[in-house]
């Protein structure tokens, strides 16, 4: 089955992005496909390459980048939400791309299920 994912909150502050990550990993392990992960609202803050979490903590941004690299997952950051919050090409982490909101609607159309993770 093909899943679309929407994430509405930034890393560390809310568990939403952690849960979404574990969901995506579990879906892949079961042989499902991830059509796209769409980052909206504060979710765009998952895409900054500048985070430096404590050594003994998970690195949420790198975890997404690695997942994209290993499984070819499409990580899309909403351009309008990103501009508002200071996420630009210059601080974008590996594996993410910036695009329009239509990518979310399209994911709703193309995927078999769209699941929203937020606060």
């Amino acid at each position, binding site marked *: 089955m093909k899943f679309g994912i929407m994430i509405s909150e930034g890393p560390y502050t809310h568990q939403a992005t952690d849960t979404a990550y574990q969901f995506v990993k579990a879906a892949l392990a079961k042989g499902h496909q991830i059509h796209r992960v769409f980052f909206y609202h504060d979710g765009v803050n998952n895409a900054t390459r500048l985070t430096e979490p404590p050594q003994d903590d998970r690195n949420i941004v790198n975890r997404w980048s690695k997942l994209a690299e290993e499984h070819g997952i499409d990580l899309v950051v909403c351009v*309008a939400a990103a501009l508002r919050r200071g996420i630009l090409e210059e601080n974008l982490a590996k594996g993410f791309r910036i695009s*329009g*909101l239509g990518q979310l609607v399209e994911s709703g*159309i193309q995927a078999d299920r769209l699941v929203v993770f937020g606060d």
Partner: protein
Amino acid sequence: MTESTGGIEVEEETAGRVKKFMFVNRKAPYGTIYALEGLEVVLISAAFDQDVSLAFVDDGVYELVKGQATKGIDVKNFSPTYRALEGYDIEKLYVDAESLKARGLTEENLIVPVEVLSNEEMADLMAAQDVVISF
């Protein structure tokens, strides 16, 4: 249109598929940005020729209250946009009756005509969707 739709050529990529999309608005305006950014998704969805409806539940009904005047908080008043939705062929606006009543509001207080639904009607409508996006 390709810019606002994220570079997607709508007709090619989604040709023929019409899904039922429901956007569920449950947050008050201004205190947080979810209502405003939610509305931005709704406007974009109009380009995809899907079967779009909006539900206003809980504090989401406050988004539609008449007479919002935001000069004092230096934030843009986006409530007139709900009146413009008709021009985008987005005409299905559903309001949860119980949410309205609990807040001491009636349809008279709202900026646009809406259809007010009972618990059962709202539950049925929600369950009949293909995609539910909540803010």
